């Protein structure tokens, strides 16, 4: 029980990071972006490349930190990858979504993003192959915190969780204390009015893609550390990410964080009530229940 709770929070923190960017895009640009999860896998693979590059250039960086499977080169690689993934998101928007945005309904955007997801996913597999990759083949053992009830915790897990929380906290301060945060709020509430007040909408859109892509890259790497880096990551994660956004309420960044944790917890607690074969359905059934009580999600605005 406690074990499931802890594991749920870990998976949840990864989903939360991915969901923040998705909810921002869904709210600002008014469409469900199916290619967002591919940014996670793009970020994970770009990190993989930088990590291997850095390791071969500066072998000293391949040293692991403390009891983690994390290396210094991986940390630098993540930072580089955040930038690359964010810029890729801007490029995709410029190539595809910007052109459809003005002339058609949101569903055309949704299915254009579905097409983009197919292209990105399979380009990745064409370049990197179909087999999953690992950042480190070493297995780090869990620490037995207690025997009864059984509680096992991996240091990597704690690190990932802390990092995710730190990133969310930083993001929270940016939103609530900076001009950019206010501008973002203004734009999401009323794009036209905010433009009158001197907010540059085009710039804001680019920033949103940059941040969303950056956070997605981190989430992708954390997922890869916890699982494997595979071209199917996007496909495997896209629905959980949407579930997190929806259950939190579209547009609510705090909702996305809570939603991520909720979905993570739901899938880890699922086995307590149902056989493991039914696990994929459980998070969605919980969402169904929450939505039947709160139709616009936990933190969504009612229109």
């Amino acid at each position, binding site marked *: 029980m406690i074990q499931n709770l802890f594991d749920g929070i870990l998976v949840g923190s990864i989903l939360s990071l991915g969901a923040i960017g998705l909810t921002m895009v869904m709210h600002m640009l008014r469409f469900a972006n199916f290619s967002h999860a591919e940014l996670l896998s793009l970020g994970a693979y770009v990190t993989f490349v930088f990590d291997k590059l850095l390791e071969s250039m500066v072998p000293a960086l391949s040293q692991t930190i403390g009891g983690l499977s994390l290396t210094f080169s991986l940390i630098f690689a993540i930072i580089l990858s955040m930038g690359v993934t964010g810029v890729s998101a801007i490029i995709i928007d410029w190539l595809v979504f910007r052109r459809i945005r003005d002339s058609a309904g949101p569903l055309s955007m949704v299915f254009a993003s579905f097409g983009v997801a197919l292209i990105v996913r399979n380009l990745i597999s064409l370049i990197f192959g*179909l087999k999953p990759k690992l950042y480190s*083949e070493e297995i780090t053992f869990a620490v037995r915190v207690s025997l009864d009830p059984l509680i096992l915790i991996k240091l990597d897990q704690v690190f990932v969780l802390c990092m995710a929380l730190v990133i969310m906290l930083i993001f929270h301060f940016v939103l609530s204390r900076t001009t950019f945060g206010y501008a973002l709020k203004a734009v999401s509430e009323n794009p036209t009015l905010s433009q009158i007040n001197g907010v540059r909408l085009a710039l804001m859109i680019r920033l949103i893609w940059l941040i969303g892509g950056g956070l997605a890259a981190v989430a992708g790497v954390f*997922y890869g550390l916890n*699982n*494997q880096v*595979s071209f199917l990551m996007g496909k495997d994660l896209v629905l959980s990410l949407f579930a997190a956004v929806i259950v939190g309420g579209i547009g609510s960044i705090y909702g996305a964080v809570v939603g991520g944790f909720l979905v993570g917890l739901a*899938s880890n607690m699922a*086995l307590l009530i149902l056989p493991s074969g039914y696990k994929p359905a459980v998070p969605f059934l919980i969402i169904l229940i929450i939505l039947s009580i709160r139709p616009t999600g936990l933190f969504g605005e009612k229109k």
Partner: protein
Amino acid sequence: MKALIFGLTAISLVALAPGLSYSADCTTKVGAVLPTSVDWGRPIAATARMAVDLYNKAGGVKGCKVELILRDTQVDPKVGVDAAKALVDLDKVPVLIGAVSSGVSMPILTSVSVPSNVMQISCCSSSTVFTGLAKDGKTKGLWFRTFTTSRNHAAVAAKIIKAKGYNNLVIFYKNDDWGQDIGKLVKADLEALGVTVKASIAINDGQPSYRAEVVEALKSNPEAAYVALYPKEGIATMREWISLGGTQNLVVANSLRSEEFRDSVGIKYLGKMVGHDSAAPRTASAASFTALYKEAFKKEPSGPGLPNIFDAVMIALLAMEVSPTLSGDVIARSVSKVTDPNGTPIFPDEAGIKQASALLAQGKTIRYQGGTGAVTFDQYGDVSAPGLSWNFSEKGIVELDYITSEDINEFINSLKK
């Protein structure tokens, strides 16, 4: 040393090349519908291609070069069926190789192969539904699969587990038709043997994390674990299992006979692991599928279904060789001449194929012995084969004990009592 051997074989192959007997202007088409866009599907397709290349090197079918037309199924039944139909109608193939998933092979069989009189041979579709369909006479003898029935695999697994002396264990199975089937059979066999199955855990594809499943299994504190998963999920689950302190007393299915699994989980944690697989009979012949594969790909065969697809392609091509006409039902009837238990044993390397062609041309029968062993189909297109146990070494995969078909059958019968 290894490089030298490869080099020598390469040179000898080049030297032999001008001796090829087929003329370039005639080709025979064979269709394949395989999931080439899936991680475990692409090596299967590559092996099919290797078998065809080998056959062509030995002279082709009836002196004609074999052209393998490969289509992706996307593991989507309607896409696979459409691809199969296009191969049959537009490319006029008399034989279809595939598919991998039963859920794709089945609609291809019912709506393409049987109506269009095309022989279909699959490497890996394990569903028992096919046997039922054949018993009802709905396959018209056109259906074959080189996948040893899960009944046999499960018996070998149970035998190994019993021999290891484990008193209780947990089962992880892939939540598809193959995994559900073998998971259930192993469980039943073990219970008949008095081994307690503490938990039987379904592993769904593509989950963000498998920790919940692993924790669930750990709770019962089992002595051992039986793992029937494919590499991607197998690696994720077993890394989780070992890092959380799960037992390293592992028994794994043939689907994990892959270097990818060894390297990603780590050989140091797999020392106590044993795998099960179907086996080639122990004959004097030194040649093996593994050797052929290594020659072609410069690495060990890795992943599920590779020897099976090799056999499927070879048997189909040999049956086409001996078949009087290239129509599906005639080829399907000719399969028995290739897999005749009383025929001359043949291993399908280049010399073997040439010998087989010569024997078949004289009206003699052969006993095909390929990657999965001496394949003999029963009247429903199913095969049973001897089994073996294996484990990993630093260099590759080591075969341990050999379990004869007689032993397996005796074991299965003893369970029924």
